[in-house]
């Protein structure tokens, strides 16, 4: 049980839920951290092609210890492998793929997401925070579908889905869906639409721990 007091699913289950929604043949970038879990849950029979913004398409799982190649790392600088059919390219081409809207999905973490799809995930308001953005703004602005994978609330129980982000923005209005331990929410022109609730959580429960108005699909 988390700070919100509700009985949510595990991160692994949320990752699996995201993976279930990504169609066969998609080109997908997974952000560093929890989003990387999604790769572990690609349903049988689907071919998903993973992109890493440092210049890899067709990224495979982590290598065995005796197969580590430090010239083959992912965006988190950890060693990875290649699958047959992979390609390698420079950073300008890699971000060309991103900015040019060729990626079907990116999955990113979030500090906050707003009701209109603004994302804040790179910088806190702490006085001594050092601005480090990496590829987050490019991914958030460029992928066709920007999925946020996050706990529904912060560790102290504050909502992460809010009317308006209080943290500095990463992108404006580009998030398409949010997958949390409690629900799946689509961000539409009409606002936040709850597509799914996890078992045992009611709409009222969810609204209670969410900082912006929710609706159910019409």
């Amino acid at each position: 049980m988390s700070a919100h007091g509700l009985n949510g699913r595990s991160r692994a289950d949320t990752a699996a839920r995201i993976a279930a929604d990504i169609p066969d043949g998609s080109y997908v970038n997974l952000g560093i951290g929890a989003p990387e879990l999604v790769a572990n849950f690609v349903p049988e029979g689907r071919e998903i092609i993973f992109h890493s913004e440092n210049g890899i398409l067709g990224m495979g799982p982590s290598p065995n210890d005796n197969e580590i190649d430090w010239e083959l790392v992912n965006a988190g600088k950890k060693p990875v492998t290649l699958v047959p059919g992979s390609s390698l390219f420079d950073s300008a081409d890699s971000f060309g793929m991103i900015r040019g809207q060729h990626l079907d999905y990116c999955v990113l973490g979030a500090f906050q997401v707003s009701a209109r799809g603004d994302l804040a995930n790179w910088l806190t308001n702490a006085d001594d925070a050092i601005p480090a953005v990496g590829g987050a703004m490019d991914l958030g602005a460029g992928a066709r579908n920007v999925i946020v994978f996050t706990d529904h609330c912060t560790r102290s129980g504050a909502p992460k889905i809010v009317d308006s982000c209080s943290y500095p923005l990463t992108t404006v209005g580009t998030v398409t869906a949010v997958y949390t331990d409690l629900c799946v929410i689509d961000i539409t022109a009409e606002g936040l639409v709850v597509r799914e609730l996890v078992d045992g959580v009611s709409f009222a429960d969810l609204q209670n721990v969410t900082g912006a108005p929710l609706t159910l699909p019409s």
Partner: protein
Amino acid sequence: MVDKLVPDIAAALDGIPDGATIAISGFGNAGNPTDLVHGLIDQGAAGLTVINNNAGNGHVGLAALLEAERVAKMICSFPRSRDPVVFESLYRAGKIALETVPQGTLAERIRIAGVGIGGFYTPTSVGTPLAEGKEERVIDGRRMVLETPLHADYALIKAWKADRWGNLFYRRAARNFAPMMAMAARTTIVQVQHIVDLGEIEPENVMTPGIFVDRVVHIPVPTDENALHDAEQAARKAGEKQ
């Protein structure tokens, strides 16, 4: 499973509507997707805007598409060739529009369409008729004009090797405009001489990653446009003599 191979040219060109913008790669014979272009004549789409470095040679390939009056507008750097009769007569008859773009600006305008950039400033064409009407500013002491992205609905390109994911390898000087066109087009259609297994093109040597490719058709022996042109000219001369 990702499988971008299609059985034949008709399947490769399926759905191209009238009025589409088609980017066609190639520079001379190198990288020229002549079989797809001939297929496009059969396919029937008309009122097309075509992006190519040139505007056809003789009465074959792109020139044949022009001669069939399927093209409303050409965007190219050099609408001249050894035998430019088809384009010139259409142009002089007012039957085709022309936008002339410096070759490097053409390449970059196509590229930025593919990589999501909205415009760029370049010194090329400053102070010339091709800069007329373009926003100009001085950057680091150099006069520059603003150029805009050149998107395409379809790209027709030719490659040497492809796999089922659509990864491409081009031989020799056949690369030219193809990588940018593959990025800039909503649907990229490739005729390829060799279909190879996944992984057979070394990851480092993939020139166009499959993410930019939609349909691949295997044409093991592509039409040689130069040879076809020469044969066509010989036949024409023989006809004149009779």
